[in-house]
């Protein structure tokens, strides 16, 4: 696969002919600030992260304040903040709230009555508020996106840097390994991995991280191959700096820019992969809400309750659009060829 390796990535990278003044984080950020679409992306991500943080804090609060005895039979995760300040997300014992349509649907087409402001987006098949579950699903989406990308980033950087720096049989072995990993579709690899080690969200993140190692390994390797020939690496080697330090202190930092772009885009991709896993039942396990799982639940009820399937998909879409906009903005800022 030597002819294809990395060439699609090469096309997007900032080339070695990049002028000195145009590199560096500060320059990049100043470029991004002038790019309105990237700012929209940033806005989306900041908002989603804040929502995710609230969900996280709530999880911690629940550990301290939650009363397992009273809520024990509810079968749903309890939301302290939502309970206190917002709508009532709890199961309705009389089942009157099951599959209640959203507030914007006021006709009688649906089996239940019209929507109420108590449940703006309606309730799910167990009477749980969809808006609240969407809100708390954000935490899962953002966490899995960032953690799995982080795993892929660290391991991929390691593999790519070692392969590119040493070359020879080490390079061959590592790259063949990463091609092999790439040849198995991510989703299937992760499902096999989770079946072997356990159907927990943690394993989904680790699995997706491992499955996407090749993306980063290739990128870093191609950067390392060009950086390796630079004079300052030669100088460091002549000065007796150890290989490990050369890789970590000189080679990797010099490959930072394209990796940052790829990582941002990969967070979006990984959110999609893990949503797909959750849809198949291999993600966050109930009662923890995740968007993919909400879509999976909705499948049985979406005819005629079409509204049930709409919002989790839109939530995923918006989040991933956010990461893609930032990633594209960073890429444009880092690639002088695209700028006029």
């Amino acid at each position, binding site marked *: *696969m*030597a*002819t*294809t390796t990395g*060439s*699609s990535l090469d*096309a*997007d990278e900032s080339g070695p002919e990049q002028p000195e003044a145009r590199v560096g984080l500060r320059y990049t950020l100043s470029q991004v600030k002038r790019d309105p679409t990237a700012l929209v992306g940033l806005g989306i991500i900041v908002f989603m992260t804040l929502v995710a943080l609230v969900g996280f804090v709530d999880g911690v609060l629940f550990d301290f304040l939650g009363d397992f005895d009273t809520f024990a039979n509810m079968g749903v995760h309890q939301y302290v903040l939502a309970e206190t300040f917002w709508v009532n997300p709890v199961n309705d014992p009389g089942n009157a709230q099951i599959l209640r349509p959203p507030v914007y649907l006021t006709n009688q087409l649906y089996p239940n009555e019209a929507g109420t402001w108590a449940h703006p987006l309606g309730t799910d098949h167990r009477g749980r508020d969809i808006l609240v579950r969407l809100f708390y699903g954000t935490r899962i989406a953002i966490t899995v996106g960032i953690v799995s990308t982080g795993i892929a980033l660290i391991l991929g950087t390691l593999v790519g840097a070692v392969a590119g720096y040493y070359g020879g049989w080490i390079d061959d072995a590592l790259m*063949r*390994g990463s*091609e*092999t*990993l*790439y*040849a*198995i*579709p*991510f*989703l*299937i*690899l992760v*499902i*096999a*991995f989770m*079946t*072997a*080690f356990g159907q927990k969200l943690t394993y989904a993140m680790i699995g997706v991280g491992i499955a996407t190692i090749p993306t980063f390994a290739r990128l870093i390797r191609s950067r390392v191959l060009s950086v390796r020939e630079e004079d300052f690496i030669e100088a460091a080697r002549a000065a007796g700096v150890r290989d490990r330090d050369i890789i970590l202190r000189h080679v990797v930092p010099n490959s930072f820019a394209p990796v940052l772009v790829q990582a941002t885009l990969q967070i*979006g991709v990984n959110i*999609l*992969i893990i*949503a*797909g896993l959750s*849809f*198949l039942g291999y993600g966050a396990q109930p009662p923890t809400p995740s968007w*993919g799982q909400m*879509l999976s639940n*909705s*499948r049985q009820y*979406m*005819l*005629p309750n*079409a509204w049930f*399937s*709409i919002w*989790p*998909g839109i939530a*995923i*879409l918006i989040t*991933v*659009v956010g990461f*893609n*906009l930032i990633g*594209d903005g960073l890429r444009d800022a880092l690639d002088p*060829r*695209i700028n006029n």
Partner: protein
Amino acid sequence: MGRLRYTISRLLQAVPVIVGVITITFFLTDAIPGDPVQIMLGPSPSAQQAAAIRAKFGLDRPLYVRYFSYLASVVQLDLGTSIYYQVPVTQKIMERLPVTMYLLLASFTFALVTAVPLGIVSAQRRNEPTDHISRVVALFGVSTPSFWIGLMLIIIFSFWLGWLPSTNIVLPWTGPANVGGASNQLEVIIKSLQHLIMPMITLGTLQMAAFTRIERSSMLEVLGEEYVKLARAYGVSESKIVRKHAFRNAQLPLITLVGLQLTSALGGAVLTETVFSINGMGRLIITAVQNQDYQLIMGTTLVFGLVFVIGVIITDLSYAYVDPRVSFDGSE
């Protein structure tokens, strides 16, 4: 180096990757907790029955013996017997593979047919409304979960409008007798296309968006080249520049991406087949995992790996048709 020799050497390079795929799936499958014999015989099988099954499927041998004997049998195109379906794995795969390949080819065709013109128009009319629309379409395409597109299509076109069937796929070469409501082959083909449209769009949207983006950026790059500027200076019309000068050169990054996108499309096939209840390879592997059908998991994963590797080799070979500068020995 001739074309044949290049092809052979590419095939040989693929061998370690395939062996790697087999190795990874073999050991991952082996690490799956639980006992397939129990799944087959129920919760409390008699010791004799269990031992007989174990011996029949060779599960009583040590791990490394099983690994090498599996490798040896794969070479002989024997993927073992499905412990759940009780039929050879190859038979089960041959039943399911055509469906998935049909879906896959259709969605890649859909993606290419829409993405190439969209990308070119977008590059030609850079920063005009057309470009903005195409970029937004591409952005949403890469950001939307494919299975959600499938759900929305079902709601709109099957439930609300009632135009298209929401489940299953009919292969166009199925006999009319086996298809309900079809009396001749033409009707089967029409039915087949009706069944195909929604899964095709579901699976193809991501590829379409990814292809549009790369087509646009590589077209922009080529349109900025010196020889294009020269042609423009000579007064060659824009449409002729695109057709005669830029088009072929701009396709190279796209071809690479087509090969690489195969792996995500194969994963996407699992989701698409689940959404539309299509009995293809994707659902086969999911049921195989659920039933802990070791041989079937390994067999299907191997076939997925093979499809990917062969796809990449085909895209590599097609390079030379598009770009005459690429010769098979790598020198220009």
